[in-house]
C-alpha cells in the first residue's frame, strides 16, 4: 500500500473515535487515511468526525437492543452516583448555615427519596448481574462483589472513627481530616457506582431490565426533581452574601461544583432513560 503522506500520528487520531464506531469503520478509515496527506483541513475534518461519532453514536452504529438496554441501565446507575454526590455536597455545604431551609432543599430531599425508591427496584438486576459476575469469576477474586460490598462499610467505619476522634482535633488537622473523609466518601460512591454500572452493563438479564424499566422512569423523575432542587439551592447559596466556609473552602465554591455535577447528572439521566426506553421498544418489536 502506498503511503503518500500518512504519518503514524494521523492514523492514531482514529483512536479518538468511540470503540463501537472503530469496530465497524476503523479499518476502512485507516485504509483511507493511508492514502491521504496530513493537512490542517483533513485534521479538522477528522476531529469533527470523531466528535460527531461520539454525539451520534447510536445513529451511526446502532447497537442491538439487549446491550443497548444494559448500557443505558449501567449509565443510569453511574448518573445516580453523580446525583448523590451533588446532593450530599450541597447538604454538607449548607448544614452549618441558614441556607438549607428553602423549598429548593425540600425539593432536593423529596426527589432523593423518590429516586431511592426507584433505585431500590432497579437493585434486583444489579444484584443478579453481580452474582453472575461472581459466579463467572471462578478462581479469580469476585471483584464485582468486593467493589460493591466493601467501599460503603469501609466508609462507614472511617466516619465512625473520625466522629470519635473529631472532638480532639483542631486547626489544620481537623481540616485535613474533613477533606480526607469527604474524599473517601466520594471514592466509595464512585467505586460502588462503577462496579454496579459495569455489572449491569455486562451481566444484567435484559428481560428483567425491560420489565423493570418503569422503575427507571421513577428513579429518573426523582433524580431530576432532586437535581432541579440542588441547582436552585446552589444558585441561592451562591447569591447569598457571606457563604459559610466548609473545611476552609467557601460554600459558594462547593455550590458551584454541585451545580456542575447536577447539570451533568441531569443530562446523563435523561439520555440513559430515553436510550433505555428506545431499546425496550426495539426489544418489544422484535418479539
Amino acid at each position, binding site marked *: 500500500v502506498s503511503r503518500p503522506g500518512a504519518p503514524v500520528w494521523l492514523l492514531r487520531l482514529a483512536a479518538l473515535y468511540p470503540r463501537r*464506531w472503530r469496530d*465497524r*469503520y476503523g*479499518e*476502512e*478509515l*485507516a*485504509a*483511507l*487515511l493511508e*492514502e*491521504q496527506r496530513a493537512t490542517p*483541513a*483533513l485534521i*479538522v*475534518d*477528522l*476531529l*469533527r*468526525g*470523531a466528535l*460527531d*461519532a461520539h454525539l451520534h453514536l447510536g*445513529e*451511526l*452504529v*446502532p447497537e442491538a437492543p439487549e446491550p443497548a438496554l444494559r448500557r443505558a441501565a449501567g449509565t443510569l446507575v453511574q448518573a445516580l452516583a453523580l446525583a448523590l454526590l451533588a446532593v450530599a455536597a450541597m447538604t454538607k455545604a449548607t448544614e452549618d448555615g441558614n441556607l438549607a431551609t428553602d423549598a429548593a432543599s425540600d425539593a432536593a430531599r423529596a426527589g432523593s427519596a423518590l429516586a431511592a425508591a426507584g433505585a431500590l427496584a432497579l437493585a434486583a438486576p444489579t444484584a443478579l448481574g453481580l452474582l453472575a459476575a461472581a459466579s463467572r469469576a471462578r478462581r479469580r477474586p469476585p471483584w464485582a462483589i468486593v467493589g460493591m460490598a466493601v467501599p460503603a462499610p469501609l466508609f462507614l467505619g472511617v466516619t465512625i472513627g473520625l466522629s470519635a476522634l473529631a472532638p480532639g482535633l483542631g486547626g489544620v488537622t481537623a481540616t485535613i481530616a474533613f477533606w480526607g473523609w469527604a474524599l473517601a466518601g466520594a471514592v466509595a460512591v464512585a467505586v460502588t457506582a462503577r462496579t454496579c454500572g459495569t455489572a449491569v452493563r455486562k451481566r444484567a438479564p435484559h428481560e428483567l431490565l425491560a420489565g423493570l424499566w418503569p422503575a427507571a422512569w421513577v428513579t429518573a423523575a426523582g433524580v431530576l426533581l432532586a437535581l432541579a432542587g440542588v441547582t436552585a439551592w446552589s444558585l441561592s447559596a451562591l447569591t447569598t452574601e457571606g457563604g459559610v466556609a466548609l473545611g476552609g473552602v467557601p460554600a459558594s465554591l462547593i455550590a458551584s461544583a454541585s451545580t456542575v455535577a447536577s447539570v451533568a447528572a441531569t443530562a446523563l439521566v435523561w439520555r440513559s432513560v430515553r436510550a433505555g426506553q428506545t431499546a425496550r421498544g426495539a426489544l418489544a418489536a422484535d418479539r
Partner: protein
Amino acid sequence: MEPDPLAPLRRFADPGLLILSSLAEGEKHGYAISHDIERFSGQRVGPGTLYGALGRLEGRGLIEPTTPEGRRRPYRLTGAGRAALRTQLASLKEFSTIGLRRLGEA
C-alpha cells in the same frame, strides 16, 4: 410535495447526495468514493465527513456494504437509495430549470 429522504442527514445531506451519486455507477469503497466525488464535483470530502455520511446512509438503508476487499469495504446503492437519489435529482433538475428560465437561459 414528497418528503425529503435526505433531510434527517442534516449537514451530511450534501455529502450524502454526492455519495449516492457516486455509487449510482457501481459499488465503491471509501477512497474510490472520495476520489470520484472530487473528480465529478470538484469538492473534497474529508474522511470524517465521508464516514459520517456513509454511516447515516447505511443506517437509513440507502446504501449497503458488500464483501470486504482486504481492509476496504465497498458500498452499493439499495433500492431505497436509488429512489432517494432519483427524487433528489428530479427536485434539483426542477430547481435548475426554473432558475435558468428566470435568467433567460433556458
